[in-house]
């Protein structure tokens, strides 16, 4: 292993070590803080290392793991927003193992983004799934158990399908690494279909989306953030890599992805229309946004990867801010509970509203430019039906986002939010700043994305 290869794998190592130390400390020390600090340092070091390696030329590590711009962006993204989720993953009586699991999810996501081989793809996916199952169940309340059990059963089925898909492809092509997947037999097509199904489940696309709203409602907000932001981004980058490296049967792969995307945009937005519960509404809105990202991936327009990475960059702070704010309003904040929040807690109200504004795609926040990328990709690929569905989705989405966006400013009598921790305030300000920055000066994120993509 040359020094360059070691340096390439160092962020993953940092994450792994952090997780192991957190696991070891948990039973030994009394205070839960020690494990949190260990996991946090692991995540922070990984993120720092990734940013430091920005300029370094890619080191060839072999088939299992490819160290290129996509992987680096993915790892940094996973570490950063894993850390953010860890900050507000605070549930009464949480066991001391939670921080370790967060680090494991980040590790899984990092390995998934770098996966060049079916094995690492499978390992990454399973690391994320199993840790999320445990994280969902932690509050040990009825709802949490239900959410985690449902996620367990369905992710088991999806993984089985994905494995069968890979096996079929392996049987046809004889290769397990992505570049080797070339061919056009029936087995290859069936395998790709099952692979797409497995990935679509983790990406919470339409027919496989059932777990997301329950997870967002039942699980602790931090776990939901991990599932909604970190795991979704990793899967998106994996699909991006599949698009570029593997020659999957074309009419099936992109048309399938487009259909699933369009379905999830419609289902996500329609189901969220009259939702009263904030987390459940956010669950449906992540389904809609996965639909938009799937549309960009399926459009095959020239700047797809730049568009996807930019969209993920905008989407993450918005969802984190809204989930953090909703975590503070108690286990199941309703629309009425938000009334008059602006007077009591201005920071939460503004960050929630700005986050929703960005998710809705209104001009002031970053979401507007993200929607520009979406429209640009769809228009350049002449896929007019997708454009129409995206517009209808945006219009429907507009309705339920604005209901929650305006609630804090009118009326009064909402619930009294929980006392705020120091780090939460910091996180909210960080996310608020990120959203407004990308809104007024999107150049910052675009240059970051392009420099990452430049590393081939």
């Amino acid at each position, binding site marked *: 292993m040359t020094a360059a290869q070691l340096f390439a794998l160092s962020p993953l190592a940092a994450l792994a070590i952090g997780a192991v130390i957190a696991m070891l400390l948990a039973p030994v020390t009394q205070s839960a803080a020690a494990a949190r600090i260990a996991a946090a340092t692991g995540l922070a070091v990984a993120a720092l290392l990734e940013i430091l390696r920005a300029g370094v030329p890619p080191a060839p590590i072999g088939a299992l793991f490819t160290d290129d711009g996509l992987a680096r962006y993915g790892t940094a993204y996973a570490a950063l927003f894993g850390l953010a989720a860890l900050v507000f993953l605070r549930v009464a009586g949480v066991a001391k193992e939670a921080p370790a699991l967060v680090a494991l999810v980040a590790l899984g996501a990092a390995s998934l983004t770098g996966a060049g081989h079916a094995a690492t793809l499978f390992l990454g996916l399973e690391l994320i799934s199993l840790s999320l199952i445990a994280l969902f169940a932690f509050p040990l309340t009825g709802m949490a158990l239900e959410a985690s059990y449902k996620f367990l059963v369905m992710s088991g089925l999806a993984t*089985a399908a994905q494995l069968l898909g890979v096996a079929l492809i392996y049987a046809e092509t*004889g290769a397990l690494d992505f570049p080797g997947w070339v061919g056009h037999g029936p087995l290859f097509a069936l395998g790709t279909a099952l692979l797409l199904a497995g990935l679509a489940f983790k990406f919470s696309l339409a027919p496989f989306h059932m777990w997301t709203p329950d997870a967002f409602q039942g699980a602790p907000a931090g776990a939901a953030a991990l599932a909604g932001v970190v795991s979704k981004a990793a899967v998106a980058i994996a699909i991006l890599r599949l698009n570029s490296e593997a020659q999957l049967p074309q009419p099936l792969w992109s048309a399938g992805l487009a259909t699933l995307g369009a379905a999830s945009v419609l289902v996500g937005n329609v189901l969220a229309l009259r939702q009263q519960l904030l987390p459940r509404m956010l669950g449906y809105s992540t389904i809609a946004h996965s639909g938009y990202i799937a549309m960009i991936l399926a459009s095959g327009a020239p700047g797809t990867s730049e568009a996807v990475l930019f969209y993920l960059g905008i989407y993450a702070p918005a969802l984190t801010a809204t989930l953090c704010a909703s975590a503070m309003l108690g286990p199941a904040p309703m629309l009425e509970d938000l009334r008059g929040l602006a007077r009591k807690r201005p920071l939460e109200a503004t960050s929630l509203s700005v986050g929703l504004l960005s998710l809705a795609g209104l001009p002031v926040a970053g979401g507007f430019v993200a929607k520009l990328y979406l429209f640009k990709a769809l228009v350049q690929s002449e896929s007019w039906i997708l454009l129409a569905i995206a517009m209808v989705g945006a219009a429907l989405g507009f309705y339920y986002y604005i209901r929650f966006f305006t609630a804090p400013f009118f009326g009064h009598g909402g619930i009294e939010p929980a006392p705020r921790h120091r780090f939460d305030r910091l996180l909210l300000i960080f996310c608020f700043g990120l959203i407004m920055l990308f809104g007024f000066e999107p150049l910052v994120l675009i240059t970051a994305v392009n420099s990452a993509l430049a590393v081939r």
Partner: protein
Amino acid sequence: MTGTALTGMMIVAAGLFATGVFGVLARRGILFQLIALEVALSGPALAFIAAGAYHGDAEGQGMFVLVLTLAAAEVAVGLALFLRIRRSKGSDDSDAVSGLKG
């Protein structure tokens, strides 16, 4: 291993997977659903072995070992959840766990 044998094995693997999925859909017991999940996972395991044999390289068996570890981990977490749900809900019927809806 000839091509026809491969397709035969693949059909058996697909059959196993299908029974597993059907098992999850049909039976309401949590325990039975976990068992059905195991059956579903065994499908791809067989498929990997067959593909590896057909192409004559050990990667297939490597993947098989990975699938086994996943199955084991999955069952462990599943049983832990099963115990916790039985204590809090008092029944091992998966419909008892359907509060989140709408």
